[in-house]
């Protein structure tokens, strides 16, 4: 496969994964703030949405409509849903001869869905419809990816983009929620119901609420929740599981080469192995440092991957 096309596909995977996380995080936090235990929850929630998206707004522009617009339909915001689907489709179009017609059509269809969406109604009444549809159409896109592509280099590279981005998004969500909790006033921070409310939003935003409850069979707590989304190798939305798949896919595309110490395969294996042998107790001793370090590790894998296989 051409290096340029590989680069297109890798980033297509990343853009698509970002959309899903933005949509779900927005949906879950927006609606969970409606029946929050404290009054000021709404502003906190809006700030949280922006933080998750990595976007700031000037104070005088900060209001609900602007925040929602910025996350979904602001073309100036490179992390908005609309920007990401434009980029993803652009990349898919550039690799049109590599991907299946079914995959292309599903991406193209979602692109038109976003471009033609009534933005006014989204900001006022249809947030659920837009975000839910986005999540569902992304599921279809990924279904077409797995169901209609040959599982060869091209597919592996798209999946690499998806898993790396998912790991990054999970860490980002944890980081954002951690800061949300930290920003609570002293007595609110001790309030169990506020805390568990934030925790539930975190877990739902990663589609991991039900499964973690089933797994632990007790009321959710910070320790269990973090362990589940960081270290549960069997749960597809955990960082460890994403990193394992990253190492597997890198192994597929580098099959022809022998493993050298300066290769991305070596690096990814090392990072995965390190995380696999960490305990949640060790991690929570200093969560912010752990998050920073792991985010940087993921950045390194991505950069090295591009350098080694598809430099532009």
């Amino acid at each position: 496969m051409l290096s340029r096309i590989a680069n297109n596909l890798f980033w297509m995977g990343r853009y698509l994964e970002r959309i899903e996380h933005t949509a779900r995080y927005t949906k879950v936090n927006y609606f969970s703030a409606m029946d929050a235990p404290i009054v000021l929850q709404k502003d906190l929630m809006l700030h949280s949405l922006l933080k998750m998206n990595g976007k700031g707004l000037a104070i005088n522009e900060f209001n609900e409509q602007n925040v929602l617009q910025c996350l979904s339909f602001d073309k100036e915001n490179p992390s908005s849903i609309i920007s990401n689907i434009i980029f993803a489709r652009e990349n898919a179009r550039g690799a049109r001869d590599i991907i299946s017609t079914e995959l292309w059509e599903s991406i193209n269809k979602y692109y038109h869905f976003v471009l033609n969406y009534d933005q006014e109604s989204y900001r006022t009444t249809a947030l659920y419809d837009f975000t839910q549809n986005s999540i569902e159409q992304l599921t279809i896109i990924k279904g077409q990816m797995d169901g209609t592509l040959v599982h060869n280099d091209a597919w592996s590279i798209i999946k690499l983009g998806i898993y790396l981005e998912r790991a990054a998004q999970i860490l980002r969500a944890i980081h954002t929620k951690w800061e949300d909790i930290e920003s609570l006033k002293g007595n609110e921070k001790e309030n169990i119901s506020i805390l568990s409310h934030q925790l539930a939003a975190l877990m739902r935003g990663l589609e991991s609420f039900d499964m973690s409850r089933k797994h632990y069979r007790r009321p959710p707590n910070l320790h269990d929740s973090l362990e589940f989304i960081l270290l549960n190798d069997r749960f597809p939305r955990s960082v460890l599981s994403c990193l394992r798949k990253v190492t597997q896919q890198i192994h597929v595309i580098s099959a022809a080469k022998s493993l050298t110490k300066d290769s991305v395969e070596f690096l990814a294996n090392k990072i995965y192995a390190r995380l696999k042998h960490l305990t949640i107790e060790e991690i929570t001793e200093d969560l912010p440092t752990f998050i920073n370090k792991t985010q940087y590790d993921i950045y390194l894998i991505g950069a090295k991957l591009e350098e080694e296989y598809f430099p532009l």
Partner: protein
Amino acid sequence: MEHNKFFNFEYQASSENYDEFVSSDNIVRAHYDPLSAQFAQYKTEHYQKFNEEAKLVFFNEGITFAVYSDNPLGSEKIFPFDFIPRIIPANEWNSIEKGIVQRNRAINEFLKDLYHGKKILKDGIVPKELIYSSANMLSVMEGFDPIGGIYNHISGTDIIRHSDGEYYVLEDNVRCPSGVSYVLANRNTLKKTLPKLFSKCQPQPIINYPEKLLEMLQSVSPGNSHPNCVVLSPGMYNSAYFEHSFLAQSMGVELVEGRDLFVKNDVVYMKTIHGSQRVHVIYRRIDDPFLDPLLFNPDSVLGTPGLMSAYLAGNVTLVNAPGTGVADDKAVYAYMPEIIKYYVGEEQILKNVPTYRCGEDDDLKYVLENIEKLVVKPVDESGGYGISIGNTLSKEQIKEVQLQIQQNRRKYIAQPIMSLSVHPTYIEGEDTIDARHIDLRTFCLLGKSTEYVLPGGLTRVALKKGNLIVNSSQGGGSKDTWVI
């Protein structure tokens, strides 16, 4: 004007043009009977539905073309598609097909001769000045022997039917003729929209075009039993990008851009995730001047440095060969009957439109005096640009055209205004079916001992009433074309 209810509409057959659907005495032509019978069962709502369905198929599949502009978002358009198919009876088609092959074989011989002995010029059949003044004659091709002796591997001959009911060749396109992906997309769409009619009529299949194309490409590879063929595109902002990717995908070969290729020791390689991989055959969809910045346009970023020297070393095949443009020049077109006779030894099967060459004194005099009866065309423009149709011009405009011609005589030819035949066409917005002008772009493949003509081709339709220019860049649409 007679009115008919062929489509549950008042279909007004054309009196001054050849109507493909009804004869001059207003009887449906026999090969349209099944279509006519089927369509008689439909009402306006059906037509609206067909039209919407067909559009949706194109939309969802992203079958679009780009209109040149700097906004990449607003610039993709659906190629307008008309769901009423054009039908060509098999016996008529057989003779068209023979004519196309004859003509393109002759063009191939002509090119071989121009780049070798130039016998045809020495024998005085085609004037020397005509060839030497052509910007498309490439001196680097002199004496070079392309593999299999093929220059115009892919030719797109444009054919019309005049009011006398005869087919005429309007243009030869032997550089990078485009449009074939729309033929396949149109067929695919119409199958989904009108399945019943389709199985009743059973038009000749076109689905194997990509296979035939790949077979042809492989046949001209410089010696490798598993040649690596690629499609070379200027990239996704090119108006024909859909076609480039469609052809690459349906042949199962890589779609590359100039920056994906590099040349080392006169061998072409592509950059892949596993290092470099040799390329044997390049179906290039970029024009000669952009192929190689070392030899042609030094500012071009579309091509690959060193590509031409690899080609001339015989290590890679370019399809079509560089320098073919000298043969589809509109001034050379005028000599096609003589060219065919010279190389093939036969009379032309498909007629040529009588052509006046402004470079010649007698012809120039006639053209300047009769502009209102003529179509004046620049010899080196494509896409319908720069064409003046005499009977649509004001007095001032006629003067302007006269001036333009005199300033650059070699640049212009003129032909009688041919009346393109008309075909029933659904008119969106008015919900009627009305006669519109059509032409036919055909596709012919020549390889080393292979030859293939796609049955039918791309019927282009001028959607504006009375308009004769069918190019998509000028508001034209297309129809599925059935040979039955």
